[in-house]
C-alpha cells in the first residue's frame, strides 16, 4: 500500500496490536484448558507460546522507514507429555490410574496476560498519538 509508508506509525502500531492480540488469544486458550485432562493414550493439552519477530524497515537510513513493527513468526507448543497425575477414579485413567494434566502454570499465564494487555494498550496509545500528530500536521497553514 503506497499510503501505508506515508502513515507508517499507524501501521507499526497496528502490527503491535495484532501481535499482542494473538498472544492474548493464546493465553486465553491456555487458561481455558488449564484443567483439560487427557488419557495416557493421547497427548496432553499443549500450551501455546507466541514467538514474535521484528519486521525490518525498507529503505536506507533515516529517509526510509525505520522499522515495520512486529509480527508473529510461529506458535510454539509446550511438551505433549504434560504432567502425569495419579487419579485412579478419573474415567480417563489407565490401569495404573494415571492421566495427563496440561503443563500450564496459571500464575505465569496471568502474568503474561497482564503484559499482553498492557502492551496492546500502549500500542493503541501510539496509534492515537500518531493519528493526532498527522491531523495536527494537516492543520498547518489552514
Amino acid at each position, binding site marked *: *500500500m503506497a499510503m*501505508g509508508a506515508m*502513515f507508517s506509525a*499507524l501501521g507499526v502500531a497496528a502490527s503491535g*496490536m495484532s501481535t499482542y492480540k494473538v498472544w492474548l488469544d493464546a493465553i486465553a486458550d491456555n487458561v481455558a484448558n488449564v484443567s483439560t485432562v487427557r488419557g495416557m493414550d493421547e497427548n496432553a493439552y499443549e500450551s501455546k507460546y507466541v514467538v514474535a519477530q521484528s519486521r525490518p524497515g525498507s529503505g536506507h537510513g533515516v529517509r526510509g522507514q525505520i522499522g515495520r513493527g512486529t509480527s508473529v513468526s510461529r506458535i510454539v507448543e509446550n511438551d505433549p507429555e504434560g504432567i502425569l497425575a495419579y487419579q485412579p477414579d478419573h474415567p480417563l485413567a489407565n490401569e495404573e490410574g494415571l492421566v495427563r494434566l496440561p503443563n500450564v502454570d496459571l500464575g505465569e499465564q496471568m502474568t503474561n496476560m497482564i503484559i499482553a494487555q498492557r502492551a496492546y494498550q500502549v500500542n493503541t496509545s501510539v496509534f492515537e498519538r500518531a493519528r493526532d500528530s498527522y491531523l495536527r500536521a*494537516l492543520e498547518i*497553514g489552514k
Partner: protein
Amino acid sequence: MAIISPVSAGLSSATVAPVATPTDSNLSTRSSGAEGFDTAISGALNSLNDQHLYADQLARDAATGNLQSIEDYMIAATEAQLSTQLTVAVRNKALEAFNEIMRMQV
C-alpha cells in the same frame, strides 16, 4: 507552472496557453523532467479510492461477522480518513495557488 496543470485541465486550452508560453526553456525542462503533478494526483486519488474500498470491505466484514480483528478495520478507516484529508488539503493548496496566479496583474 506544473502545479496548476490539474486545475487548468478542466479549462479550455486557449486560456492557459498564453500563460504557459512566455517561459520557454525553463518550463520545457521542468515538464519533461519530473513526474507531472496531474499524474501524481491521479495516482494518489486511485490509492485513496483503493483505501476506501478496503475500509468498506472491512466494514462489510464487521457487519457480517467475518472480521478477524477489530484493529484492522480501525486502522483502515483511520488511514482512509487521513489520506482523504491530505488529498483535500493538497487540492485546496493547488486551487489557492491557481487562483493567486489568476488574480495576478500583468
